[in-house]
């Protein structure tokens, strides 16, 4: 070790963040500040962002401990709408369970659950218009489910089977559904952020009325794309709702490695002059209310909003991850903001608009529905059964028109097929 140059000064020390709980520790979140539901003001949607910086450090909450909706952010949704949101969230959870199991059964290579984060995608989607454009990260399957995208098509994509609308070209769960206002998921982190801002800028430049919404995890806010997007969104007052899903974990890296020890993620927006809200992400009504507020702000040409959804990733990052290796097993149950499905269910019950029996019956119905969809999808094949895509489709879509070098390489591939003695499927003539 080199000796300090100046012995009369204290040596510098490098701070490397460390989460509070590791495997074997009892998780205790009493240090997490949870303000009472209903606290915090709701500014007018066109108010200048400088007027409410405190909302970037607080926590917008609507549902209280008794399942009641309270305070200025209560979106006052009809019982029917509440039941539809609850159903979409429960369906997302059932879908995740089934597809996680399908991966474990070897039917596909990869899956990512959104357990505990269903409100962040589903309730936000209910607050957007059907033709608003969503630029999701990889954990917002709830958007597609909230927009009634056919589950069987999601599963076909997960299985890369003969009915996969993406032709087996993308990793499972990296959906693309233009007709449902759902942009192609990249897999590279936060790249969708400036793209969503660009889409919103184009919409504004053309005098359209549609807005865009974008999601990334708290970990990806460290990417340059996030900051470039914030700059563009602020500069051009782009009509975009920018969501940061703070689920505390980026694979094994806790939120401290993205800066959570120093400030909130909503506070990132304050420096850009962007309206910034920090929201209880497990409170479907708070998510809905914040999104509706941001969407109204965008539609009134009052600019973008950054929403941090404070939530918890209740399961592993993906099927390739084992969170028991790096975090306390207690965390999900000790999480102070509870479970989003249970909280919305309790609210509906408190309203006298739902009961445990109906909920149990719905869970059963949804599980059966998902199972039936899975059966239909598997009729088109599963990844493990191999070669579903026509061999000659491999080179399609690199360019609109295939140049000579790709044609030559395609011929080489077809020659290899002939040499292998194992004929492959072909595109229909």
């Amino acid at each position: 070790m080199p000796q300090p140059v100046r012995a009369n000064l204290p040596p510098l020390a490098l701070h490397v963040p460390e989460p509070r709980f590791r495997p074997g520790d009892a998780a205790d979140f009493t240090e997490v500040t949870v303000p009472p539901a209903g606290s915090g003001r709701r500014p007018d949607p066109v108010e200048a962002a400088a007027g409410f910086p405190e909302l970037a450090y607080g926590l917008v909450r609507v549902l209280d401990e008794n399942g009641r909706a309270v305070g200025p952010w209560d979106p006052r949704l009809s019982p029917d709408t509440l039941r539809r949101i609850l159903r979409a969230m429960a369906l997302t959870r059932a879908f995740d369970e089934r597809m996680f199991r399908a991966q474990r059964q070897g039917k596909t290579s990869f899956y990512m659950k959104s357990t505990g984060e269903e409100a962040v995608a589903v309730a936000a989607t209910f607050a957007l218009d059907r033709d608003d454009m969503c630029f999701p990260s990889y954990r917002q399957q709830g958007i597609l489910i909230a927009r009634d995208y056919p589950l069987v098509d999601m599963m076909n994509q997960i299985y890369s089977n003969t009915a996969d609308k993406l032709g087996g070209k993308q990793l499972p769960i990296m959906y693309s559904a233009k007709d449902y206002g759902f942009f192609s998921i990249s897999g590279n982190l936060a790249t969708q952020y400036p793209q969503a801002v660009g889409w919103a800028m184009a919409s504004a430049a053309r005098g359209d009325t549609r807005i865009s919404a974008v999601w990334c995890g708290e970990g990806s806010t460290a990417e340059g794309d996030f900051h470039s997007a914030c700059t563009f969104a602020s500069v051009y007052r782009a009509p975009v709702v920018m969501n940061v899903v703070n689920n505390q974990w980026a694979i094994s890296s806790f939120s401290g490695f993205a800066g959570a020890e120093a400030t909130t993620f909503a506070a990132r927006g304050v420096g850009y002059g962007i309206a910034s809200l920090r929201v209880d992400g497990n409170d479907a009504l708070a998510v809905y209310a914040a999104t509706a507020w941001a969407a109204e702000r965008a539609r009134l040409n009052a600019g973008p909003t950054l929403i941090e959804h404070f939530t918890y990733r209740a399961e592993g990052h993906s099927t390739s991850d084992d969170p028991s290796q790096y975090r306390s097993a207690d965390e999900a149950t000790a999480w102070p903001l509870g479970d989003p499905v249970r909280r919305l269910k309790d609210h509906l019950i408190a309203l006298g608009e739902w009961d445990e029996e109906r909920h149990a019956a719905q869970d059963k119905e949804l599980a059966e529905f998902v199972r039936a969809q899975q059966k239909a999808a598997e009729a088109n094949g599963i990844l493990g059964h191999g070669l579903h895509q026509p061999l000659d489709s491999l080179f399609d879509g690199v360019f609109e028109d295939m140049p000579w070098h790709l044609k030559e390489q395609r011929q080489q591939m077809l020659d290899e097929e002939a040499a292998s003695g194992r004929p492959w499927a072909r595109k229909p003539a």
Partner: protein
Amino acid sequence: MTGTDAQPSVAGEDDRSRMNMIQAINSAMDVTMGRDPAVMVMGEDVGYFGGVFRATAGLQKKYGAARAFDTPITEIGIIGVAIGMAAYGLRPVPEIQFADYIYPALDQLVSEAARLRYRSAGEFTAPITVRSPYGGGIFGGQTHSQSPEGIFTHVSGIKTVIPSNPYDAKGLLIAAIEDNDPVLFLEPKRIYNGPFDGHWDRPARNWSQHPDALVPEGHYRVELGQARTVRAGEAVTVLCYGTMVHVVLAAVAEAGVDADVIDLRTLVPLDIEAIEASVRRTGRCMVVHEATRTGGFGAELAALVQERCFYHLEAPVERVTGFDTPYPHSLEWAYFPGPVRLAQALKKIMKD
């Protein structure tokens, strides 16, 4: 091929005027913006000021700030936003002020623009044309001189175009903007104002005497993927593009070599037929670029020629390139593949 709902071309022989490269590039954007409301330009200093090289001069005044505007200094943002605009249905022409500054945007270009069509099975596409001045010879030092084309030709899903004169610059840029795939359009800034024969110690020339500086005022296309023979000859094939086209023409004239000089114009997709036909005839091939040598596009050209024309070759394929160093400031003419390096290579390849 063309993805615009634009009007048919109206250019005739009689509406040509003399333009330099900047004026021709400006005219290409003007013409496409006039024909297709989806076309828009953006970049650092691009709007009111009209670009540090003046390539977008007048466009904001003519088409409004919503279609020609300045951007923050973030290349990730410029390209990422352009991709989002393209996904909406626009046809953005973002400018990266110097190709040396394109690297922050690499992920957006390589992982996003180039793959969007493939990964979404054609649901979303990124018909953007990224314009960027490149190359040295202007005392730009290591941050205003680089030739990064080889980084992009290595990527599937993006086209790379490099013009060498005003006529091609306009026609290629129009074709690039109208193309439905992402195009990197690299502009050799050393020849913006005039052709350059590599003799840095002689007076600079402008485009006023050059036949390829007579440019139609209206719409026309120079199709992507088509090379052009700029000097027909029988002794050796020289493959080049951008600034080096002019340096090569001067060098073969000075050496008295009857070279077949091919301006590739588009690197991806490459005009392989033109290359093969020429090399089979001449039996010799020299590839020339200003970019660094190792892993450069010249290596790809040399490999293609030996794969396809090996039994016609009478000498090894010769590569003439820049050195594998950063672009030096004060020693740039020692770095630049100029007349001496070309003369020696010509001598070597003609010896066998």
